[in-house]
């Protein structure tokens, strides 16, 4: 099939892209390695998390991408948020995200993180995640099948490799905006824990 007019590759465009590329050699180098070994922290709040066991285990085997599950935020690179977030969980998720080391990436999983899903009119469930945390990638579906999850992870790896997954930089740059949204929905982000008071 012939390429149509605006899809044609010509030399001038390629050069222009190269000239506009401001990343240093080491940044590119780092991005390649980052995309090859990711630890994933999964904050499984909703029903969609049931698709993760087959994704991680032998059926679809997530580890062949160089991704593995991680139990602690400080050692993790990817924060996978599966499903609806009530205001109560959002508070904990923000804590978790802020404990992670940069570079860190957020993946929203399922339609509940996208637009509230079937809980769009609930008094306790937030309607979209990217107002409160910088989401690098959404995996749509209610719930997404393991194939979709794997496809999403591949896209994330490509984005990291190319340096497009910049959510953590956005969170630093527009921190005021994120904090304002968080306060608006939560009142305050501080977690009260009556059992340890």
């Amino acid at each position, binding site marked *: 099939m012939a390429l149509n007019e605006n899809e044609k590759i010509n030399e001038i465009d390629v050069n222009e892209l190269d000239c506009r590329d401001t990343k240093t050699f080491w940044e590119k180098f780092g991005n390649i390695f980052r995309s090859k070994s990711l630890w994933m922290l999964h904050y499984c709040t909703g029903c969609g998390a049931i698709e993760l066991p087959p994704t991680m285990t032998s059926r679809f085997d997530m580890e062949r991408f160089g991704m593995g599950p991680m139990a602690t935020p400080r050692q993790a690179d990817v924060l996978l948020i599966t499903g609806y977030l009530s205001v109560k969980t959002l508070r904990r998720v923000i804590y978790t995200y802020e404990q992670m080391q940069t570079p860190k990436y957020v993946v929203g999983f399922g339609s509940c993180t996208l637009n509230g899903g079937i809980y769009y009119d609930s008094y306790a469930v937030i309607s979209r995640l990217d107002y409160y945390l910088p989401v690098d990638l959404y995996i749509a579906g209610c719930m997404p099948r393991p194939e979709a999850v794997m496809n999403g992870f591949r896209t994330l790896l490509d984005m990291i490799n190319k340096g497009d997954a910049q959510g953590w930089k956005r969170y630093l740059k527009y921190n005021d905006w994120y904090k304002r949204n968080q306060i608006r929905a939560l009142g305050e982000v501080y977690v*009260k824990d009556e059992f340890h008071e």
Partner: protein
Amino acid sequence: MNSMNDIINDLKNKFNPINFDIVSEKQFAIDVENEELQSILAYLKAQGWKQLTLLTCIDWIKENKFQLVYIIYNWDNPITINVRTKIDRDNPKFRTITSIYPGAEYYERDVHEFFGVEFEGNEKSKKPLFLELWDDIPPLRKDFDPLAYSKKKFDVRDYKVDFIPKEGEAE
């Protein structure tokens, strides 16, 4: 005193229940006056209904009443009893049953948080349990509008309404 009918007759003799509802083979409901609720629960506990499975509330907004439902269970004689009573919706106050079932403390906090019922004698019942920093009327009352609250509190995603493909676009 094993079959459900025996238990019902026994309760009819000892108390003045308003009404009985047979829910299923092993479950029945009994409606009582506010004053009798404590004594009937205490009596049933002594008879073996040792477990308070649930304490919850139903909002009968047209009648202007809250109905408190105490579901109790007997491990030796597997019959579930729902003991129910109606209280005034405008001034929802009731006595605590923590002296009979100490575990009711948390259920009473729950009902206070979601319906606004006050439980006298349980000084912890006003402590928040699930909702952190709640700032509206209790959310499970029928006159609370969750959609309006959600719109006011949480930002929603805007979608383009125009999905008609332009010429030459995917068909």
